[in-house]
């Protein structure tokens, strides 16, 4: 573990998510190296980087799904355990079996499991919240249908609805736009911006530079180490992008980035 004082002491109570020296990986081989990050509230941040850069590892380690080898994640300056009700996680779509015998509303209701606890009954107000979340992503008319027949974009929107039903303040999303049709992408981005406008915080792993430039406030460039962090216009420069993608990025994509 890191010695106290290894990082400059700042008050992290205002930051929904802050990482300090987070190092994590698999089988004793760290993928993510010493990540420092401070996400301001009410912003929409994209985490960008090539395959294998440690983007998902970053989210998983921050959420305690992977035990970090070093460093810590702070949620509003504290431990995740005290803040779980305020944090929603949207994993990669492919991480679950979509053949599972559940209806769309069942999945949305899973977002309320923490509140319901072991013995709590699903009351009309819970159902209303789940249905409101489904309405927000445009899936309410399908609420009673099994999830097995959903398209990729619809699957992603069900996942988002589950997070919305939770009523969280911080949303961590792993590739929410991967393999998603244009209409679903538009719908998801609109909901994420609405959340931001309500003062909530959105952090999404993403791979498409164009969407980030147009739709996100902030960007984190990651290739095993955090190479840039800040408002999109400042963080995304030809230099930081070349560093992130190891010179493999199409020069055309970089044109006009340097201001």
């Amino acid at each position: 573990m890191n010695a106290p004082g290894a990082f400059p002491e700042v008050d992290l109570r205002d930051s929904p998510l802050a990482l300090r020296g987070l190092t994590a990986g698999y089988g004793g081989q760290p993928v993510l190296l010493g990540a420092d990050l401070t996400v301001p509230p009410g912003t929409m941040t994209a985490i960008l980087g090539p395959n294998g850069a440690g983007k998902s590892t970053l989210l998983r380690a921050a959420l305690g799904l992977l035990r970090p080898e070093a460093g810590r994640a702070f949620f509003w300056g504290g431990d995740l355990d005290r803040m779980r009700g305020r944090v929603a996680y949207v994993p990669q779509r492919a991480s679950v079996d979509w053949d599972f015998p559940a209806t769309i509303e069942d999945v949305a209701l899973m977002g309320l499991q923490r509140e319901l606890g072991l013995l709590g009954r699903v009351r009309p107000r819970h159902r209303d919240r789940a249905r409101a979340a489904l309405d927000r992503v445009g899936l309410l008319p399908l609420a009673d249908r099994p999830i097995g027949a959903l398209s990729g974009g619809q699957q992603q929107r069900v996942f988002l609805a589950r997070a919305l039903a939770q009523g969280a303040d911080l949303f961590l999303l792993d590739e929410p736009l991967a393999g998603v049709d244009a209409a679903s992408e538009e719908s998801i981005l609109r909901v994420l911006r609405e959340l931001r406008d309500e003062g909530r915080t959105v952090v999404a792993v993403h791979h498409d530079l164009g969407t980030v430039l147009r739709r996100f406030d902030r960007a984190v460039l990651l290739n095993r180490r955090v190479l840039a962090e800040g408002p999109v216009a400042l963080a995304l420069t030809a230099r930081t992008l070349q560093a992130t993608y190891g010179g493999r990025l199409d020069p055309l994509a970089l044109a006009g980035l340097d201001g």
Partner: protein
Amino acid sequence: MTALLQAIVLQAGHNAASVVLGAALLGLAAGAAGSVMVLRRRALVSDAMAHAALPGLAAAFLLMAGLGGSGRWLPGLMAGAALTAGLALLAVEALAARTRLPADAAIATTLSVAFGLGLVLLTLIQGLRWGEPAGLEGFLVGSTAGMLRADVAAVAAVAALVLAAVALLRRPLALLAFDEGHAAASGLPVRLLDRMAMLLVLLVVIAGIRLVGVVLVVALLILPALAARAWTRRAGPMMALAAVLGGAAGWVGAALSAAAPGLPAGPLVVLCAALLAGLSLLLRGPTARRRPDRRPLIDAAEGALWTRLRLKEPRSPLLERDDGRTPLGAVLPAETLEALRQGRS
């Protein structure tokens, strides 16, 4: 104890010696063929095949006894077992491929239904009381008692066939077991090899049901392979070692059973193999895996130097050395490092 020693050194009579040799041959074949299944993570398919041998055995008995012959002619029983075990393999594959059931559910359902059918036929045979007492119960957990020379010869012939096939196909089988995708890409007929591997397992199963029994024969495929895997990570040597360990378990287990005729052979052979597997895992478990990197992680200041190098020279081949434990100073000449450090301002 002397009886056991005599049995082990094949001095406990001609019949006992041939049973011990037959069991050793079976263990050799099972270890080699089982390695392929364990490496391909499909070991339990053979369990379904083994349990499904029971209805085939019973049906063959009914047929042979119904036609007026002896129901206990081992080659005939083995043929029946092979048929239903093969059908079970097809059923598992069809359920897993054509329905939404996952492979484990396909195995578990096929296994239990086929075994249930076997029990129905077994009780039917007991109820019919045709001529001789059937003695098919010995096929549940195996028995060496009352094995005829011809029976041993049949077991040994099948085991020898498997062993010869594995020896002949060891290279492609090792490739298949190690990396199926790579094997296909390098032009091997993967589908054919897969059928061959399954056929070999099927042969081991039907060779094993008399000695080890349908419930336990899968252990002979899994345990030696599990033991061998603790000592080597390479497919070829693993198959060879598993064969040797399986052979040893078969030899000692059958000798024990010959020395103590009241004890069924199957559990003795299986427990010998389990002992080898347990010892292997205890002795070699942690060292067989890659040694974890014990070097300490570098601190934030050292990390910042790597970040600076990434920003300055994105294409530097040195970046591949950035594993969170190597300080930049270890791979970069001092003056270059200093220049990078100066860039701080």
